């Protein structure tokens, strides 16, 4: 392994926010987006791969979603930039960052991990928050608390968190008008304190809509089934944004 410190992106979210499904979509179901830089995501360990593989099983109609079992300790995923063009001199892939999910089993990201990260992805389950006031309050509370924990630049005036923060609304396939909705307004619809907290803490943030499966699961014999092949939407957008922000900062 190279000993140089690699860029890491923290993946964070409250329970039920869709972290494992988001990771599964990145590893197992990613499709090429036209005119976008392609990426590939590889688990760094066999246990991480088996954890994600257990998230879905083949079903007659598509893919059946299985409740996630316990995550491996310190799961790690690697993000590679890839190219379809084969040339004699240039390699066709490059490791660009590591994706570090925060899981309850593994504990919250340590201050060291946060300080070393080039970006943070915060997941919020849009469908769950829309369906339940209790869930909404819990997620908003988690969100504002988490923003306050992000490392601040010493001596900087608020907003003092320079780290790029990508807020991802997951489960967006549940909303029929998801494509038309503005992500920032959607987040604000769960309470103005979300955007207030973002603006108060974060100098660099963006809100994204993501769908790990591309379509809302259907209930089949007590099992959530994604009919057909899962087609994730927007799952790479926060990663691309964070990498671009990190590169811009280095260039500056």
């Amino acid at each position, binding site marked *: *392994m*190279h000993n140089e410190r690699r860029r890491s992106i923290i993946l964070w979210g409250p329970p039920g926010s869709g972290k494992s499904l988001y990771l599964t979509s990145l*590893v*197992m*179901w*990613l*499709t*090429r987006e036209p005119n976008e830089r*392609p*990426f*590939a*995501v*590889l*688990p*760094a*360990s*066999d246990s991480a*791969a*088996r954890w994600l*593989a257990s998230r879905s099983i*083949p079903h007659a109609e598509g893919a059946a979603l299985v409740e996630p079992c316990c995550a491996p300790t310190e799961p790690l995923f*690697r993000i*590679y930039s*890839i*190219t379809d063009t*084969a040339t*004699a*001199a240039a*390699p*066709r*892939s*490059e*490791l660009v960052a590591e994706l570090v999910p925060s899981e309850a089993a593994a504990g919250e990201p340590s201050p060291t991990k946060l300080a070393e990260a080039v970006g943070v992805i915060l997941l919020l389950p849009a469908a769950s928050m829309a369906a339940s006031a209790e869930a909404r309050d819990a997620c908003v509370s988690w969100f504002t608390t988490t923003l306050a924990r992000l490392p601040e630049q010493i001596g900087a005036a608020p907003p003092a968190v320079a780290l790029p923060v990508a807020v991802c609304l997951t489960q967006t396939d549940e909303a029929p008008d998801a494509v038309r909705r503005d992500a920032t307004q959607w987040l604000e619809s769960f309470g103005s304190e979300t955007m207030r907290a973002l603006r108060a803490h974060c100098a660099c943030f963006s809100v994204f809509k993501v769908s790990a499966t591309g379509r809302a699961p259907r209930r089949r014999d007590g099992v959530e089934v994604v009919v057909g092949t899962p087609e994730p939407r927007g799952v790479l957008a926060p990663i691309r944004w964070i990498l671009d922000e990190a590169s811009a900062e280095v260039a500056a």
Partner: protein
Amino acid sequence: MIRLTSRGARGPSATIEEKRRSILLWGAAGSGKSGVIGALRSEGIKTVGERWTIDLADAAPDVVAYADTASLALRLRDVKETAIRRPERAFTAPVKRYAGRTITAVADVTVLDPRGELADDPASASARRALSAARTADGILWVIEAPATGVVSPAHRFAVLRQVIAMLDAASMTAVSVPVIIALSKIDRLPRADMQRLIDAPEIALRGLLGDAAFGWLLAAFPRLRCVGLTSAGTVRNVARPVGLTAMLDWFADEWRREEQAADTARTRARRSARVARMRRRAPVAAAIAAGAAIVGFAGVAAARLLTQNTPTWTTSAGAVVTQASAKPVEHSSAPAVAAHSMPPLSVATAAAALEHGDAIGALHQLGSLRLSDSSSQRFVVDSLIAAAALRGAEEILSSPTPSPTALQTIVATTSVAIARAHPGTPMLAPLSLARAAACIGGQLNCPAEEVREDLAWALLLGNAAEQDQARRLRAALVGDSVQMR
């Protein structure tokens, strides 16, 4: 390693020793690894054409049995079921490339898992031990059976993912930097059109079989990935006529050759860069003194300046008054000036002649060995010759690709003696100091920093316009260079 050998009709000729390369052959059970070995064995009976064959001369009996039964199975496919005797353990055998009867390349093939058992649980300890060989391999040939259904099942895709992760983990890498071929095997069993599609555009076909995500894993893990469609048996019944085998192994050889050429080019560039860097450091110095040497000219210019002074006395910078016998005026000419009548003509003349003929260092040696009184009039001529020779010599040496430190030291030593005996404040100090500073700075001789700065100061103070200009350039070169001064 690839060992290139040429064997002519008269027998073995000289062997060009090169690094011998190794290829790792990997694949799950039933993927087609045995077919590759059998095809390599079958190619061994040919005597014409370009082909790769396996050399079993020194192989263990179980390896020979494996290759023979695999070859037989290819020939008897669809006719008779032939049991292939697979060894239990990994083995390595050389493969040789032939053009007719001539061996043109040799490599080693290591079959990590002949029975394909490790691929079922690639994270196991035994699999990790075997896969750690990926760390030292020069190429990896991963055989995957082309599915008849046209799509790889999710379970099979996941198996591929686990094997990729295991390979990277066992080899402690985040990506495999050596050439890797994914060979879609047994394509002869597919419909003709599908087989042709796999031969013509194997990567597109593989991506279609695996899907974007799974293909992305392979690209991520293997930045030097190539896909091929392979049939070890071929399409002719009762014989083994592989399609894609020779091209596949040739690609490895081409990639290794390209690596070696790139490494040679990089080494050459590094050497050139180092030479250019050294030349660049010397160039400003050489340029700085070139004009100075021309202005100082050949011997006699400085002497002429002194000898044409109206007063026979001058005051030193320390205020003392020195009387000096006047000497005849010396004409400005390209020829070295001849000193006063009391000068031993032979030594100074030969030194002057040496300088005129371009041997500046030789002239310095001669001038430095002259034994003259410091107060003699000849001394000034000699010192002016020293100045001219030192400047000329420094320019020539610093302009050469390999400047001689010894010659530069000679310049420093000779000019130092002349500077030490020169009266402070005399114009003679300007060219002498200029020459010594040029040798020190351009040659990076670790001269005392104070001495170099004083030299430049005298040149700026006492020199004519050209000498002052050269001193400024040398000072700029001194400031801008990383020359270490004591």
